[in-house]
């Protein structure tokens, strides 16, 4: 180990005036394991440092063919290895000038061992959690009700929360939140999505009951629903459909639901539209309005992200196009949209790209990046930046 005398001799050779320096010197050498490469550096985004200091863990997730992501308890980050042409040495026990000035210790040599070195580090960038797979997994085996033949004989996997954490590249909170968004429900410990037909059957029971009891759509009593419908369907399913299509509230100790007009109209539209490739728009609008509960009004804007109107055809038509069926990646999503339709107006395309927006990003930014703008009949339209082959619609 170097001595003070050796340090001073080096200073003299280097022609550095010791009077200009703080009295403490760090003699740096390489620790025995420094070259073993056991340590690596992870650059932390704001907030992650505080989480780690509080004792939280992070998890890196990814299949062999997927780009790895890092998840905290509620956020997901893309991971990349960043190379630098500089050498990064990590030194334990090395003090900064402030620390030295504050600590009036008597020693004036600190022997510090370099624990490791690297010329790269892991870099993180906040990203959208990869949740499309979640819906896909649950759709492999949708729940068709207790009488459904499929469920008893099913060879398809069912997934618990733990299973999902090991399959989806997202944080736990993001997964749980998305399960709520897609109206999934835990049945016998497994997360299930309802088969659409079964869901409509349940919804229909509730709508018929509301009608026959002449209840206000804003005040549907849970207790009576369970009493009246309990013989037809499991009570958990009746409660589930009310939770999916209504807002729960308490009044005088009783549970009531205020039914979501938009969500109900939207579901009924889906039920109508899924039966054909496309519909005559005005015919559809008429049938649709007649099919929704008394007191509800249908509006085309309820169908954003679900159906697309073609105003260029004669007569005008409407067809089912669900945003959740489209690709998850930005470029792939735009390619898919442009192969369905060559030119889009902003109001038409926005519902189909809204979910691509990162935190604080707007659809306008996405359009600038992935589309080319032009004017058509005085209206601003967007088309692809590159030639796209037209998709053949089934």
């Amino acid at each position, binding site marked *: 180990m170097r001595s003070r005398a050796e340090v001073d*001799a*080096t*200073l*003299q*050779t*280097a022609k*550095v005036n010791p009077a*200009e*320096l*703080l009295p403490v*010197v*760090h*003699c*740096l*050498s*390489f620790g*025995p*394991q*420094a*070259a*073993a*490469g056991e*340590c*690596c*550096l*992870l*650059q932390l985004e704001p907030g992650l*440092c505080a989480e*780690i*200091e509080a*004792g*939280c863990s*992070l*998890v*890196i997730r*990814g*299949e*062999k063919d*997927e780009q*790895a992501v890092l998840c905290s308890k509620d956020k997901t980050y893309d*991971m990349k290895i960043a190379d630098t042409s*500089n*050498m*990064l*040495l*990590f*030194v*334990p026990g*090395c*003090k*900064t*000038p*402030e620390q030295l000035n504050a600590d009036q210790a008597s020693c004036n040599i600190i022997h510090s061992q*370099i*624990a490791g070195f*690297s010329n*790269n*580090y892991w870099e993180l960038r906040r990203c959208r959690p990869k949740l499309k797979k979640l819906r896909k997994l649950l759709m492999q085996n949708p729940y068709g009700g207790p009488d459904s033949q499929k469920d008893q004989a099913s060879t398809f996997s069912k997934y618990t929360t733990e299973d999902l*954490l*090991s399959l989806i590249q997202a944080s736990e909170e993001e997964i749980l939140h998305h399960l709520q968004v897609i109206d999934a429900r835990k049945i016998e410990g497994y997360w299930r999505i309802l088969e659409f037909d079964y869901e409509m059957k349940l919804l229909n029971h509730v709508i018929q009951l509301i009608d026959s009891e002449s209840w206000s759509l804003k005040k549907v009593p849970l207790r009576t629903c369970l009493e009246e419908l309990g013989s037809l369907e499991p009570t958990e399913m009746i409660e589930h459909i009310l939770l999916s299509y209504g807002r729960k509230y308490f009044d005088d100790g009783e549970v009531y639901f205020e039914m979501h007009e938009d969500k109900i109209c939207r579901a009924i539209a889906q039920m109508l539209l899924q039966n054909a490739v496309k519909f005559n728009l005005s015919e559809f609008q008429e049938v649709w309005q007649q099919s929704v509960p008394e007191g509800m009004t249908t509006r085309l804007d309820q169908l954003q992200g679900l159906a697309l109107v073609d105003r260029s055809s004669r007569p005008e038509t409407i067809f089912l196009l669900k945003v959740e069926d489209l690709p998850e990646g930005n470029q792939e999503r735009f390619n898919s949209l442009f192969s369905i339709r060559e030119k889009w107006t902003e109001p038409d395309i926005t519902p189909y790209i809204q979910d691509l927006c990162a935190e604080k990003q707007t659809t306008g930014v996405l359009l600038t990046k992935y589309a080319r703008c032009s004017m058509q009949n005085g209206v601003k339209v967007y088309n692809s930046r590159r030639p796209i082959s037209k998709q053949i619609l089934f």
Partner: protein
Amino acid sequence: MVQIVISSGGPGALAQWVLLELQGQLEPRRSGALGGSVLGDLHYTHEGVPVLIVGHHILYGKVVQLEKPFAVLVKQGAKEPGAEEPGAEEPGAAGPDVSYTVTALIKTKLLFKTRPKPIITNVPKKV
């Protein structure tokens, strides 16, 4: 799917290390392992400027508070039969037992970006 846990180790506050960033690569004077070799002397001026004397060079740097701190990760768990290369680790290539522990946090770095000034000597002074 691979799940690699990065845990923050046992109870108690995490150690605070410092990063030293140098231009170029280091070459040991003696061939063989770097472990045990001396790097050099690190001084600070009264104004807080770090001064590093490495071999025949003197480097002046600056203390930088990192906007994005680093966590120093140490790999835990079973090694693969064919030993992995040190340095850059591919998360996807890890075995099922691999996890990492955060051994320290780095919030400060000493950045030496200026060209090293050579120390011209005739004869090293014998002590």
